[in-house]
C-alpha cells in the first residue's frame, strides 16, 4: 500500500518551512507573462462599445462607418436592437482593428440609439411596505435554500419560481460536481426558465422578500431576555478592481478549434463554458494562462467580451483578437461585491449569554438581487428570526468576492455583539469567550486563538470601555472578530514524471492567482522525492494538462497538494521498484532523502538520485495523482478552519479620519505547506481588509445610473502609508497539522472589516453603521451621537 500520508513533522525538510515563492524572480524582473502581455502574430485589438444607460432598450445599431474605416477587420453586434440593457457599461457592439488606436477610433464611429428606461441604482433600506414575492432563482439563491430547507421544499420552490439561468448540461454538470443533490439538479433541469426581463422588472417590485427563517423560539427569548441591544450595520458594494483587467486573446487555428489566452480562475473549466455560446465541442477549446493579475472571485465566468473576442476572430478569418477591459469598464462591469445591511436585535442574559437574534437585512448584487448574508456568523444563537429583502437594481452584476457574503456576515454579527457587550458593560473579548460554545466545532480553536491574539495585541492592557481612551482630539479603540470557513481541496489531477536523467516534471491544469499555488505544488513534490525545489519542473495553466478545479472557495491548495502528493508518491514508488534489486532491498524498504535513494536505516546502501534514475532505462516513469481518491485513503485535505483578528485604531474626532494602528491575525489552516506564502496570504487579506473598511465603495449616480468613481483616483485603494504594524500568527503543529491541507484564500479576509468597525465603535463611543468608514460617515455618526 503506497504511503501517501503527510510525513510527520520530524521527517519534513520543506513542508511547513518558509520557502521563497518559486515564481518571484519572474515577477520582480517583469518576465512573468500575463494574458495582458500576450502578443500573438497578426493580433488584432478589440474594443467594446458600452451602453451609457443603467437601463435602456437598444433601438438601432449602425456599424457601417466603422466597417468602412481602414484598418478595421471585424465588427460584431453583442446585443441586438430590441434587447434590453440592465446596467451602464454593458457590452453592445465590439470592433477589431489592426492596432489599439484604430480600434478606439472605430468604436467612436459606431452609432447606437437607445430608449432610456427608468433605473434604480440605490441599495438604501427598502420602504416598510416594499417587497414583492420572490422571483426566479439564480444559482446562489438555490445554494442558499439548500442550506435552509429540505430537498423537497427546495424542489417545490424551483417549480413555483423557476430559474434565471439556462439549465444547460454544462451548468447541471457543474452543480453536480459541487455536490448539489441529484434530485435538486433534476428539478433545476425541469424548472421554468424565467430570465430577468425588462417587463418583469417593470411590473414587479425591485424588492424581493425572502422567506422568513425562524429557529427555536425567538419571541420567548426576547421576552425572557435581561438585556436587548439593537443596531444598524452594513457594507457598501465594492469593486474587485483586479490590476490585470478581465479579458482574453481569442484565435481560431481552424474553423472549429478555438485557442485562447484568458485571464481566468479556472483554466480547466472555462473551455466548456466558452464552447457553448460558440457552438463547438468543449474538446475543441484550448485555454492557456501563465500568470493572472488578480481574480478575487471575479474571473470564474465567460463574460460577453470573451465571446465577442471569439466572434470577432472568427469574422476576421481566425486572426487572434485581444479584448482586455479598460480600467473604467473593469470597475463598472467586471466585479462587484454585493452589499449587505441589517437592523439587528440581540437578546441576552445578564451573565452575557446570548439567547436570541432577530434581523431585517437587505442588500443588492445588481439585477439578480442576491442572497441573504450568513448571519449570525460563527455563533449559532439558539433562537432566531431573520427576514431578508434582495434589491434588484441596475448597478451591474455582482460577483463572488473572496469568502462570498462572509465579510458581510462577520461585520453584521460582530458589530451587533460588540454593541451588546457595551450595553452589558463588559469587555467584548469576555463576551466572545463566554459564548464560544455556540461556535460548536471550532470552539476549542477559537479559545486558543483568542488567547494568543489577545497577548499579541496586548488587549487586556490596552482595552478601555467605549469612548474612554482619548487624548486631545484623538480617540483610540480596540476591536475584534472571529470567523470560520470550509476550504476543502477541490477535485484535481496531475501527471508526475521522473526521467532517466533525474529530472522531474509535473503537469497540472491549475492556476496560480498569486496565492503561491506553484510554490506549494513544487514543495510537496520536492519533499516527496527528497529533492530541492529547484529540481522540480512544473507546468500549469493549460487546459491540455490534467484537469484541476477552479480556484475558488479556498479549494486550490488542498486539492493540488493532495493530488501532487499522491502522484509523486506513486512515481517515486515506480522508481523504487526499478532500483530495489540494485540495492538488494525490497521497494518498500527504500526512501528518498537529501538527493539520495537509500535503504531505510542503512545509509551505506544508497544511490544518488541521478544514479537511481539512470536505472529507468530509456523511458520515464509517470504517475497520475488525483484528489479526492476515496478508494485510496488517507484523506490529505480537510475542511473547517477558524481565525481571530484584532484591530487597534485611532480616530481623529475633528476630521473623522480613521487610522489603523495595529492588526493581529491568528489563523488556522490545517497542515501548512509553505509558511511564507501562508503568512503573505494573511497579510494580504488584512491589507485588503483595511482597504475595504476605510476606502472602497462603488459610488453610483442616481441621476445617470452610472458609476461615479470608475477610475483609480476616486476608487481609492489603501496605499503603503495606510498599512500599520501587522502581526500574523499561524496555528501549526499538533491539533492542526493532522487536519490535512486546508485553503486560506478566504478565511483571513472575512474579519478585518468587523475588527476595524468594532475598534472604531470602541474609540468613538458609538457604532458607525456602514463601511467604508470614511471621514464623512464618522463625522455624521459623531454628530448624531452629540444630537441624541
Amino acid at each position, binding site marked *: 500500500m503506497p504511503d501517501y500520508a503527510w510525513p510527520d513533522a520530524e521527517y519534513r525538510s520543506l513542508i511547513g518551512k518558509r520557502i*521563497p515563492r518559486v515564481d518571484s524572480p519572474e515577477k520582480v524582473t517583469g518576465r512573468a507573462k500575463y494574458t*495582458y502581455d500576450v*502578443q500573438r502574430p497578426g493580433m488584432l485589438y478589440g474594443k467594446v462599445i458600452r451602453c451609457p444607460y443603467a437601463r435602456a432598450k437598444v433601438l438601432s445599431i449602425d456599424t457601417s462607418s466603422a466597417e468602412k474605416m481602414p484598418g478595421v477587420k471585424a465588427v460584431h453586434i453583442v446585443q441586438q436592437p430590441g434587447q434590453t440593457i440592465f446596467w451602464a457599461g454593458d457590452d453592445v457592439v465590439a470592433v477589431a482593428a489592426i492596432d489599439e488606436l484604430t480600434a478606439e477610433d472605430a468604436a467612436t464611429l459606431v452609432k447606437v440609439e437607445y430608449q432610456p428606461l427608468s433605473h434604480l441604482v440605490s441599495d438604501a433600506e427598502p420602504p416598510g411596505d416594499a417587497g414583492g414575492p420572490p422571483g426566479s432563482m439564480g444559482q446562489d439563491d438555490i445554494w442558499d435554500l439548500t442550506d435552509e430547507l429540505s430537498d423537497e421544499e427546495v424542489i417545490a420552490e424551483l417549480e413555483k419560481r423557476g430559474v434565471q439561468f439556462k439549465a444547460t448540461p454544462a451548468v447541471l454538470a457543474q452543480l453536480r460536481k459541487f455536490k448539489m443533490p441529484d434530485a435538486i439538479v433534476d428539478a433545476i433541469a425541469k424548472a421554468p426558465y424565467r430570465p430577468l426581463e425588462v417587463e418583469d422588472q417593470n411590473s414587479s417590485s425591485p424588492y424581493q422578500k425572502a422567506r422568513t427563517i425562524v429557529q427555536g423560539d425567538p419571541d420567548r427569548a426576547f421576552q425572557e431576555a435581561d438585556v436587548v441591544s439593537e443596531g444598524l450595520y452594513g457594507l457598501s458594494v465594492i469593486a474587485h478592481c483586479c490590476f490585470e*483587467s478581465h479579458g482574453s486573446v481569442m484565435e481560431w487555428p481552424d474553423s472549429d478549434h478555438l485557442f485562447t489566452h484568458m485571464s481566468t480562475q479556472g483554466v480547466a473549466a472555462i473551455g466548456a463554458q466558452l464552447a457553448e455560446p460558440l457552438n463547438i465541442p468543449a474538446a475543441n477549446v484550448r485555454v492557456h494562462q501563465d500568470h493572472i493579475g488578480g481574480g478575487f472571485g471575479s474571473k470564474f465566468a465567460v463574460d460577453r467580451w470573451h465571446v465577442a473576442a471569439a466572434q470577432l476572430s472568427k469574422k476576421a478569418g481566425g486572426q487572434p483578437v485581444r479584448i482586455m477591459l479598460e480600467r473604467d469598464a473593469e470597475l463598472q462591469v467586471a466585479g462587484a461585491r454585493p452589499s449587505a445591511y441589517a437592523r439587528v436585535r440581540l437578546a441576552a442574559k445578564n451573565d452575557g449569554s446570548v439567547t436570541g437574534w432577530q434581523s431585517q437585512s437587505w442588500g443588492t448584487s445588481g439585477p439578480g438581487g442576491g442572497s441573504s448574508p450568513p448571519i449570525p456568523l460563527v455563533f449559532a444563537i439558539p433562537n432566531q428570526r431573520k427576514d431578508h429583502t434582495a434589491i434588484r437594481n441596475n448597478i451591474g452584476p455582482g460577483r463572488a468576492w473572496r469568502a462570498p457574503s462572509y465579510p458581510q456576515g462577520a461585520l453584521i454579527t460582530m458589530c451587533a455583539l460588540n454593541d451588546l457587550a457595551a450595553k452589558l458593560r463588559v469587555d467584548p473579548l469576555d463576551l466572545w469567550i463566554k459564548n464560544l460554545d455556540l461556535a460548536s466545532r471550532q470552539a476549542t480553536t477559537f479559545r486558543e486563538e483568542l488567547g494568543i491574539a489577545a497577548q499579541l495585541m496586548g488587549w487586556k492592557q490596552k482595552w478601555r470601555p467605549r469612548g474612554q481612551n482619548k487624548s486631545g482630539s484623538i480617540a483610540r479603540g480596540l476591536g475584534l472578530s472571529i470567523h470560520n470557513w470550509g476550504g476543502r481541496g477541490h477535485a484535481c489531477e496531475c501527471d508526475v514524471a521522473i526521467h532517466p536523467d533525474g529530472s522531474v516534471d509535473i503537469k497540472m491544469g491549475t492556476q496560480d492567482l498569486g*496565492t503561491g499555488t506553484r510554490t506549494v505544488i513544487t514543495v510537496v513534490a520536492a519533499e516527496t522525492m527528497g529533492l530541492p525545489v529547484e529540481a522540480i519542473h512544473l507546468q500549469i495553466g493549460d487546459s491540455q494538462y490534467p484537469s484541476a478545479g477552479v480556484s475558488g472557495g479556498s479549494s486550490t491548495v488542498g486539492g493540488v497538494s493532495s493530488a501532487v502528493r499522491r502522484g509523486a508518491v506513486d512515481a517515486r514508488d515506480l522508481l523504487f521498484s526499478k532500483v530495489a534489486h540494485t540495492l538488494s532491498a525490497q521497494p518498500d524498504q527504500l526512501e528518498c532523502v537529501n538527493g539520495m535513494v537509500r535503504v531505510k536505516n542503512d545509509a551505506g546502501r544508497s544511490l544518488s538520485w541521478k544514479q537511481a534514475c539512470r536505472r529507468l532505462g530509456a523511458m520515464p516513469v509517470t504517475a497520475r495523482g488525483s484528489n479526492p481518491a476515496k478508494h485510496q485513503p488517507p484523506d490529505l485535505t480537510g475542511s473547517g478552519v477558524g481565525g481571530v483578528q484584532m484591530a487597534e485604531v485611532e480616530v481623529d474626532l475633528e476630521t473623522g479620519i480613521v487610522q489603523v494602528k495595529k492588526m493581529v491575525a491568528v489563523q488556522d489552516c490545517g497542515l501548512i505547506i509553505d509558511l511564507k506564502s501562508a503568512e503573505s496570504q494573511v497579510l494580504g487579506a488584512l491589507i485588503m481588509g483595511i482597504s475595504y473598511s476605510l476606502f472602497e465603495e462603488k459610488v453610483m449616480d442616481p441621476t445617470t445610473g452610472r458609476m461615479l468613481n470608475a477610475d*483609480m483616483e476616486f476608487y481609492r485603494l489603501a496605499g503603503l502609508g495606510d498599512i500599520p504594524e501587522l502581526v500574523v500568527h499561524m496555528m501549526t503543529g499538533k491539533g492542526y497539522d493532522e487536519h490535512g491541507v486546508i485553503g486560506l484564500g478566504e478565511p483571513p479576509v472575512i474579519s478585518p472589516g468587523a475588527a476595524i468597525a468594532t475598534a472604531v465603535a470602541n474609540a468613538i463611543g458609538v457604532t458607525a453603521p456602514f463601511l467604508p468608514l470614511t471621514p464623512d460617515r464618522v463625522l455624521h455618526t459623531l454628530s448624531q451621537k452629540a444630537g441624541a
Partner: protein
Amino acid sequence: MSEDSNEKDPLQEEQSQSGVSRRDFLKISGISAAVPLVAGAEVVTADDKKVPVYGPGKLAMEFTINRKKYKADLAPRVTLLDALRDHFQLRGAKRVCDRGECGACTVLMDDRVVYSCMVLAIEAQAAQITTVESLACGNQLHPVQQAFVDHDASQCGFCTPGFVMACKAFLDKHPKPTTEDIRRGVSGNFCRCGTYDGIKQALAQLARKELRHA
C-alpha cells in the same frame, strides 16, 4: 453611441461636444515645445510662441531604452507605455489605470520617476529610459529585486515591476530612509493583493544593508 439623437440628453451631449476624449486631451496638452527630434513638423504660432504640430499620422521616432537604441514609426498620441509594450516588446511595465493613478507603469526618464502612461512617446525621445528589464544581469537580481523575493513582496505580481522601479528610484534618492520616508516614498504606487508589508520590509532591509547601486 449615437451622435444625432436627443440633444437634451446630457450623456449624449458629453460624447458629441468634442472629438477629443479626456485621455487624448491629457496627452495632447502634455506635449511641450521641447520636442525637437521629429523633422518637418508644421509650425504654428500660439500665444506668441512658435509651436510645432505633429501628426495625426505616424512619425519616425528614436528612443534610448536601457542604453539601447530603438526606432519605430508611431502616431504622436502613442504613450511611452504603449510604445514600450506594443512596439519594443518591453512588457514589464503594466497598464492598469492608464491615467497616472496607480504606478504599475513606472519607469525612469533620465533619473526621474515617471508614470509611462502619462508620457507621450514623442516626448521621451531625448531621455534615457530605464525599465525593469534592465535591472537584473542574467539570473543575478538587482538588490531591490532580491529584497522583494526575500520578503515575498509580490503576490499576483502585476504591480510588482512598477513597485520595483519606484523603490529603486526612491532608494537612489534617499539612501538612508526613515520609517516615515518609507511610508511616503512609494505612495504613488498601489497594489491590490496587499503586498505592502513585504515591500516595507524589503525597503527597510535595503535601508539597513545599503546594498544599492545605481
